[in-house]
């Protein structure tokens, strides 16, 4: 086994997902299969090879520091599932 049910449960918590018991069984089985497949990367010696994060890299795409109009508050709130006139409403945090 490359990944256990318990590890999948932990990863699900990190990813903020609830998995029902059957879903957890199925995901464990499928993730194990996928991770066993990707283990073929271990065949390759990558010692000293620089990782690529972007195939065509651009650094520091800065714009001039000039104030521009941005999304108005009312529009920014409009898609929120629960909101007041000036903020999003969420369940208790503390």
């Amino acid at each position: 086994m490359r990944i256990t049910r318990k590890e999948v449960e932990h990863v699900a918590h990190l990813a903020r997902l609830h998995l029902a018991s059957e879903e957890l069984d199925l995901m464990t089985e499928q993730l194990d299969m996928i991770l066993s497949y990707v283990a073929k990367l271990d065949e390759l010696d990558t010692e000293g090879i620089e990782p690529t994060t972007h195939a065509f890299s651009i650094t520091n795409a800065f714009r001039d520091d000039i104030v521009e109009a941005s999304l108005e508050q009312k529009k920014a709130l409009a898609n929120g599932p629960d909101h007041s006139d000036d903020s999003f409403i969420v369940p208790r945090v503390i």
Partner: protein
Amino acid sequence: MEPYELTITEADTLLAEKKLSSDELTRSCLEQIERTEGAVCSFISLDPELALQAAAEADQRRQRGQGGPLCGIPLSIKDLLCTKDRTTTCGSKMLENFAPPYDATVVEKLNADGAVLVGKAAMDEFAMGSTSENCAYKIPANPWNVDCVAGGSSGGSAASVASGQVLGSLGSDTGGSIRQPAALCGIVGMKPTYGRVSRYGLVAFASSLDQIGPLTRDVTDSALMMQAICGYDRRDSTSVERPVEEYRSFLTEGLKGVRVGVPQEYFPEGLDPEVNQVVMNGAEVLKSAGAEIVEVSIPHIDYCVAVYYLIAPAEASSNLARYDGVAYGFRQAGANDLINMYKDTRSQGFGPEVKRRILIGTYALSSGYYDAYYKKASQVRTLILNDFRRAWESCDLLISPVSPTPAWKKGEKVDDPLAMYLSDIFTLSTNLAGLPGISVPGGFSSSGLPIGIQLQGPHFHEGPLLRCGFNLEKGLNLKRHIPSISV
């Protein structure tokens, strides 16, 4: 011939000569949608009234002698491109009622050109899938055989163009999601170089791989739509500031001096013999047009699936963290604290494939596994890039299959994620290396399903790729037609 059967280029000519109005053309497409949508299922949302209004405006612009080639042309757009005040679902329950407050840059560009946006095309949820069967709303069918998949993730885009519902479409390609459905539906699909088209307003899946591109009925139309959408945009920090070439000027006959590479690894034993034959025939056609055929090697192709299915989920797990039921989208009611609200919302809002990829990605990035999975995959990505760099020393572009097989039956691979992932083998490397690629119709299987041919080139060589695709199309001289769709 009915107006909906025209290419964009043909329609543009008729519109310019006042032999056809955009109103007539748009109504012809809307009627074709009425006739076929029950079987083809390309659209998540349709807006005929807005389309006819846009058509009327386009006709006025044309009357005044204004408007470019897309003015008055009915198009569909994949439902992950933000459309101001028009629902953008990404094929997910999570964004069922999401109406973006702004247009994507490409949508702005199409609107400015006077294009008629008919509706939003069906797709795999958050573009994760190879058949569009992971769509929360509709599963598009292959217009050539409605029991088969249209491909994915831009399956609705491809099906809408192939079935005559619209003349062209915009999709997005993260691992083949434009080229593969185009191939399976018998049309042209182009994935531009990473950074060539602005991703602003494209709902992010894997940000280092995503790129927007056109799906059209021929290569000339592809060049035309590319012209409309390419270019620098300061709102996308990965957009490349570089002049856009005049793509149509590349569409000339003859390929003298062009070296076409045949990468042996793309023709493994066990490749579908009909696919093999179609691609080999394509190489012969290019040779007849004057190209030189050379054998090349992309040794690490066999590792692409493993690399991709670590990097793309890793990026996705980060990008999709934003769907937490707070600022937009779905929220599951009932939780009495914040963490459980997040969990309930994400568990109810996402489908199984999206959850699977979020889990893989979260695992690959998690403490203790980062080096073994994410870093390792990123290093092998470098080896793949190096393979292509070496290949460009001996050839100008590569010819290969797009999909290992023609379209398969709906339901066939849905329970086997790994088999589904392996079907992407020939398209993933293009995205990992950030290259441009195009899928051009190459022929049909014995069961009457389309087979595509893929061309890949060096960064920003869209022009030469279009020229090669144009010559392929001319040389093959396949009769273009809209399949009759059994409802």
